[in-house]
């Protein structure tokens, strides 16, 4: 099958890493998977194509922005690809009612925005997938979409310069980090050396945040981070994520509240297990077990975060074993080869999308 993805290219965010993996895994099965557009040397692992005539399906990946498709491309994509051969991956849960989580995180700024998104999806395609095991809306098919690349696992023995790392942008994450993680870190600070947050906007919002009414999404407290001795490091390109995580003994993965509520999977769910690190995930136990297998429960940071961090510091070998068990589970159930099969099957209409094992 020839599949063309259409998505916003971002070197240090979004789904571009998954795309590179789809292209690689697809080749094994004789599928041609590429990103729509002219070749871009900034993404050497990603094949590009503009051959719509040769594409069986065009799959649009939408994250938090609707207007990333340039009008010229949109005109070409819409007129050269019949609707029956278009599909949407709704990565950020925009195909939902207006959801306001904890009076903080939200998928849309207003009901009007939400209607516009739904109209856009309705105009583009009949098939909508969400990277969730159980989408909440009728008409949305589950498609985990993001996956695990066992070949990309960094072997042990990488020198550790950092004790605890959080790699991800400050995008609707402050309430969880400021309200739950930082108080725990404050209690156990003496047990750990270097702690760093890698990503954008931990040291302040972008200039355009206020203009777009998104101050809350980028809220942070750099003074508090400094007082706690947390270093802020710049974002890294997708191809360096796993290697960067591997520089830390422990990596903590968090999700914005909305994603947790919708149980949306992301690249980070899997990248953190490809790294040579002890991954700790701020997810609900049931959800962690569902994705990662039974050992995933042991790696959850949920109730007593400070206690869990102390325990990891005391018994790192035990957590390395849990992580190893999760890696086996991920290799068996969440490889990109499996993801490609699921995608191809669901596009062809002969395979349920979610087979999580």
């Amino acid at each position: 099958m020839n599949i063309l993805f259409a998505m916003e290219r971002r070197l240090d965010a979004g789904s571009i890493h998954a795309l590179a993996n789809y292209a690689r895994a697809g080749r094994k099965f004789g599928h041609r998977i590429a990103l729509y557009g002219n070749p871009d040397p900034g993404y050497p692992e990603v094949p590009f194509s503009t051959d719509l005539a040769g594409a069986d399906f065009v799959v649009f990946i939408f994250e938090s922005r609707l207007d990333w498709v340039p009008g010229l491309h949109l005109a070409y994509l819409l007129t050269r690809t019949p609707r029956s051969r278009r599909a949407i991956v709704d990565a950020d849960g925009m195909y939902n009612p207006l959801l306001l989580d904890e009076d903080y995180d939200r998928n849309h700024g207003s009901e009007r925005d939400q209607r516009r998104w739904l109209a856009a999806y309705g105009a583009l395609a009949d098939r909508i997938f969400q990277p969730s095991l159980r989408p909440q809306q009728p008409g949305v098919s589950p498609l985990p979409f993001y996956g695990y690349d066992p070949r990309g696992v960094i072997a042990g023995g990488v020198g550790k310069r950092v004790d605890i790392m959080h790699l991800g942008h400050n995008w609707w994450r402050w309430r969880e980090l400021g309200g739950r993680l930082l108080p725990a870190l404050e209690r156990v600070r003496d047990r750990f050396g270097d702690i760093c947050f890698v990503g954008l906007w931990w040291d302040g919002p972008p200039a355009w945040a206020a203009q777009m009414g998104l101050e809350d999404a980028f809220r942070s407290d750099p003074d508090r981070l400094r007082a706690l001795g947390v270093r802020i490091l710049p974002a890294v390109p997708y191809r360096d994520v796993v290697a960067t995580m591997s520089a830390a003994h422990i990596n903590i993965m968090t999700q914005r509240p909305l994603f947790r509520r919708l149980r949306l999977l992301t690249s980070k769910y899997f990248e953190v297990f490809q790294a040579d690190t002890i991954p700790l995930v701020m997810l609900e136990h049931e959800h962690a077990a569902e994705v990662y297998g039974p050992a995933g429960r042991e790696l959850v940071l949920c109730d007593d975060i400070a206690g869990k961090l102390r325990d990891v510091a005391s018994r790192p070998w035990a957590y390395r074993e849990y992580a190893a068990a999760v890696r086996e589970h991920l290799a068996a159930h969440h490889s990109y080869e499996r993801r490609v099969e699921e995608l191809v099957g669901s596009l062809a209409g002969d395979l349920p999308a979610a087979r999580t094992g």
Partner: protein
Amino acid sequence: MNLLLVSKLARSARGINTIANYVGAADALGHRVAVFGEREAGFPDLPFSLDPSDFDFAVFVVYMPSDFPDLPYLAELLDGVPKSRRVIIDCTGRYNDTIRVEHDFNHLEKMDGHQSWEWIEAFQSIADRILQPTPSPRREDVGSFLFHGYDPRAEMHPFRSASEAARHWSSSDRKYGAAYVGHNWQRWTQIRRFVEAAATVSPPLGNSALVGWDWQRRPDWAVQLGIKGCDVDPELLDRLGVERLEPIPYAEVRGFLGNARFSPVVHRPLFNRLGLVTNRTFETFLADTLPLVMLPQEMAESIYGPDALPLVPGEDIAGRLTAIIRDPEPYWDAVLRVRAHLASQHSYEQRLSELVALLQR
């Protein structure tokens, strides 16, 4: 005929004045023209519609990529209007192979990321008919349609004779000797020639004004991208006493130009090569100012008629300005003749009728 115009509107750029005039001309001729989109507070006098089924044709007025609507609107438009009832007016010659004239281009991949083939494929995907506002399109599959026009009712000062106009022009106090309203995009070479020449005229013309984006300095993004299309020399302009002002809304252009004795009519180098006309080609003749037509002579003659030639200075801009100041009447005679020519050959009623006829073919 009911026409739905599809374009990104801006109050001080691109086709807004022309579009507003089409709405007025449609009322006069019993047609209906609306702009595709939700009502915009900045354009209270324009009718908007999101329902393409109410219209006979969708007319895409394209200058730049953002003239194509965002989602979901473009998808709904393409679903709601068959290709045979869509037409594109390509205002900047995008639907050509890449053409470079000096440092002006019809495709600006560095700025918008789009290569030549993308424009061509997209246009061919959207519409069966593509029109360009030039008397002589280069491609065989493009029709000629000048699009922009002239509204004689909007002349700021409809003089009855050249002598009356010349007297009024010579005796009235004006804030500026010369003024140009337009953005600094691929115009510096010509504006520089004009202001340098104007500074040598004796007796002095007085201060000049440039109104629009990026006359203050070359913007940072242009420096970063290596784009020379908005070059400018602020020190030279300071030395010559040229004021630089922010853009003004389209409805204020004619009034503002009346503050100046002269106003140059210039086109981008690319437009001169392709013969493309703009709104300002016509609009400057509405103002109470003396237009100096800095266009290739052949083009000036084809648009304005043979009477425009006294207003075309050729290489000797200073000499022509001096001659006009000494004896303005023959030049005002030329202006009035050009106005009459534009009123009879290029009115918006005619333009709209031409478009309707083209679409009915």
